[in-house]
């Protein structure tokens, strides 16, 4: 594997011009009080664009073609909030959309009584609703992760919501890159397909981190500007 990855504006431009792009809508907190608003927003996108699932993304990278002429999009939900199961999944299923959940596995592993502190320590925002009952579970649990994976894409966003600058040692790489996939695969019975760093750092920014992600068995890295096929 070459260590040179072209992340220039020109590389992005050329991909767009060649039709190699996908629209995504990134979400974070989706509280229950916003369920109807979320449904309305996603319905508006779904009326204009076609939801893309993992098989179709894999198919594009295998063949260079989408399954349909209609523009595609991915609704992506970050961090691993409990509302992903309680709010997002029912809405997406009603609309026939595949949701893409990027989950901080350490948030899921954290005891509910500590989840607010974990969130406040790791750049995970909580809404007033989530703070209304101190100590209540605000993250997904592993049963919910497994259930979501039956209809949607669920994949790690590090364990601790860390960026590459926070991941220095081999132990850090094991904890934040390798172990999350192992834990998620055990919960879903699938192979977690993608990895995302905090701040959306791309593949190609750090050979050491790139190798860890690739060797952990992920086949995609999502960044701020690209979906990168890496394995």
């Amino acid at each position: 594997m070459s260590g040179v990855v072209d992340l220039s504006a020109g590389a992005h431009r050329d991909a767009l011009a060649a039709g190699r792009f996908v629209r995504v809508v990134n979400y974070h907190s989706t509280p229950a009080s916003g369920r109807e608003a979320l449904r309305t927003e996603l319905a508006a996108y779904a009326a204009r664009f076609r939801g893309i699932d993992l098989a179709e993304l894999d198919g594009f990278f295998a063949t260079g073609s989408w399954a349909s002429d209609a523009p595609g999009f991915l609704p992506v939900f970050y961090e691993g909030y409990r509302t992903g199961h309680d709010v997002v999944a029912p809405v997406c299923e009603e609309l026939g959309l595949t949701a893409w959940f990027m989950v901080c596995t350490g948030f899921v592993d954290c005891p509910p009584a500590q989840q607010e502190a974990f969130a406040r320590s790791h750049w995970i925002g909580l809404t007033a609703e989530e703070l209304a009952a101190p100590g209540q579970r605000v993250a997904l649990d592993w049963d919910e992760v497994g259930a979501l994976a039956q209809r949607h894409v669920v994949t790690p966003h590090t364990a601790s919501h860390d960026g590459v600058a926070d991941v220095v040692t081999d132990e850090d790489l094991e904890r934040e890159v390798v172990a999350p996939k192992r834990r998620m695969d055990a919960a879903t019975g699938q192979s977690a397909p993608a990895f995302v760093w905090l701040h959306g750092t791309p593949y190609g920014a750090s050979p050491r981190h790139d190798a860890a992600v690739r060797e952990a068995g992920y086949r995609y890295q999502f960044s701020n500007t690209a979906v990168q096929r890496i394995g």
Partner: protein
Amino acid sequence: MTGSPHAHVALLREAQDRALEAEGIPMVLALLDHRATPDAPAVAPTVEQEDGARAEGERLAAALDEVREALLPGHRGSDLGATTAALQAVSYADFGRVLDASERLGAQR
């Protein structure tokens, strides 16, 4: 997408200065293929898409050129932050604005 640099800065503000913790953030992402084997260097997949999809991509690419040049003329192409900002603005103009204000998540909170 035409206008003065000020208009492009205004677009970038509109794209970024929203309740991003509550609203969906629209982005157009490039699909890049970095797979490689000793016999097959990394190449992007051959796209045999219909003219419409390619035309859509060419329109987005032109918009990216225009916004980058308007926001940071002559700036180095390797500045990923600048590429990200330009893509944010292009994406917002391309499909983030398709929602009416009443449809937008943040407007209802």
